[in-house]
């Protein structure tokens, strides 16, 4: 599909403060029509606050917002017909069935009865929820709830879609299905603004990514350009026991062709532009009474770039993933 490079979303100097907390700090970005733009950052970075301001659920302190060419800084209602929102929490009506929920959401956008019923049936099939269409939302599993909430967000076929952590806390199969649907929507030309703290998800899906930390965008670029510095690098992770504090320095003096870094307690990261030979490294350590318990090849990814740019350690991101649970990474 030929891409129209006109902007679907333009944000300039957006700032939001909650009391003493500066939730979003002077951020600016642009998302082109048909683009899948990722907004990546840890929990509390300001991702949801940004989405809330863009969609009209929160008031901005300063800045400007244009959606689909419509100036909606002070009148978010002006562009709400163009957008769909999948929030980070399922927020449909527990007392309505899946089918009724979708029909109701379609009616909010003025769709006629036949149109909304057909669309609801289509989406229930697409998301694999047809068998549960007459079951109350309250009785859905967490994964089913997330999928129906996603379906409700796209019921009116919006040209611009905001996805707030769409795969957080759901099972592996559902997460995979949701990612497939995101990719399909993107292929069909929907502009997608995706917030996530799953780095692999952003890397897999997004064309451009902005890293947001503490309310500020620290880097925004094409995914391929972000990955460029780590592409072609060979990384080996050595798990050891009995190592001293200056092990990385000692190894660097023995193997000047490699770069060494203590990436975690009892772990050494070995980086090189050429293949890393494991044998000499293991022997070097064993001679110094340091036992190597594991040697693992690591393929550099966006996570490495994220850690490098933001300074946020990979162990912190791992904790974030564990906290969120579910199948976001699979």
């Amino acid at each position, binding site marked *: 599909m030929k891409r129209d490079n006109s902007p679907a979303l333009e944000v300039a100097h957006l700032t939001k403060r*909650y009391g003493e907390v500066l939730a979003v700090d002077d951020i600016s970005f642009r998302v082109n029509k048909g683009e899948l733009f990722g907004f990546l950052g840890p929990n509390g970075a300001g991702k949801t606050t940004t989405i809330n301001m863009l*969609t*009209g*659920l*929160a*008031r901005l302190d300063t800045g400007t917002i244009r959606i689909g060419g419509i100036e909606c800084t002070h009148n978010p*209602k002006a562009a*709400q*017909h163009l*957008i769909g*929102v999948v*929030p980070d*929490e399922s*927020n*449909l*009506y*527990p*007392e*309505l069935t899946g089918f009724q929920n979708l029909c*109701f*959401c379609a*009616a*909010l*956008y*003025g*769709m*006629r009865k036949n149109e909304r019923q057909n669309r609801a049936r289509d989406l229930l099939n697409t998301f694999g929820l047809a068998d549960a269409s007459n079951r109350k939302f309250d009785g859905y599993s967490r994964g089913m709830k997330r999928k129906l909430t996603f379906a*409700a967000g796209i019921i009116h076929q919006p040209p611009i879609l905001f996805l707030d952590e769409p795969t957080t806390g759901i099972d592996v199969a559902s997460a995979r299905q949701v990612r497939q649907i995101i990719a399909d929507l993107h292929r069909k030309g929907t502009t997608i603004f995706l917030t996530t703290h799953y780095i692999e998800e952003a890397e897999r899906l997004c064309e451009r990514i902005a890293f947001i930390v503490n309310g500020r965008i620290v880097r925004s670029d094409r995914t391929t350009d972000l990955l460029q510095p780590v592409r072609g690098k060979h990384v080996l992770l050595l798990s050891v026991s009995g190592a001293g504090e200056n092990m990385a320095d000692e190894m660097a003096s023995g193997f000047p062709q490699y770069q060494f870094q203590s990436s975690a307690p009892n772990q050494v990261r070995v980086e090189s532009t050429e293949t890393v030979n494991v044998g000499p490294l293991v022997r070097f350590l064993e001679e110094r009474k340091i036992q190597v318990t594991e040697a693992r090849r690591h393929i550099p990814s966006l996570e490495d770039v994220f850690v490098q740019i933001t300074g946020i350690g990979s162990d912190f991101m791992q904790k974030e993933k564990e906290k969120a649970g579910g199948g976001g990474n699979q």
Partner: protein
Amino acid sequence: MKRWIAFWNILTKDMRAYYLKPPNISWGIIFPLAWTGMFFIRTGSGLESVLALLPGVMTISILFGTTSMLSVTITFERRSRSFDRLLLAPISLELLMLAKTSGAILFGIVNAFVPIIIAAFLADLSGIVWSLVVPAILLIGVVSTFLGLFIAVSVSEVFEAQTFSNFFRFPMIFLCGLFFPIMSLPIFIRPLSYILPVTYGVDILHGAVNGEHIMSFSLDFIILGAFCIVLFLLSLRNINRKWIV
């Protein structure tokens, strides 16, 4: 047209999900029956006082029906974040809140007719001026609903909404002339009666049912209408200030 599809579906969804549930239907029937019975027993009066009680029972049925339902449903939807879904819809906040409140208004109006139907079996209703009763019921329904809305958007928890609405509702039973004439209240309390909207609705109903009223009907209607507008605008302002932060 699209906006009215949204309006109609919000209204019907609320009716189905909240108002037409068996507990609410039984509440609408039992509540006026209980109040009427209580007054008969307490005053020792007979069926001849049905007409005297009717305006008060009608008003209390509307007031409790609308405020209790609306304050709970709005607060509940706000807590569960399903209200955000409505705020994201491309309809104005005014139309959205009118849709959300229309169900409660209809529920209140239906509640008001329960005591009328019961009274029809017990007393002669031929002297009632229906052309006054019907708009008065409508306006009492609207003003009570908007009072419930005002309460709902002022709190964040369902129990707070219930507590806060009782703070308004129970004094109104005694202060608004539902069962005791305002003129029988101590003179220093009477100003309170006149700052409560229900007073004006009850005055119309007393006039239409028994021919006794203390203000002109047109003044009653104007003041009731003004209360409706002010409460609605205050509620919208609170939603804008407190919910879209």
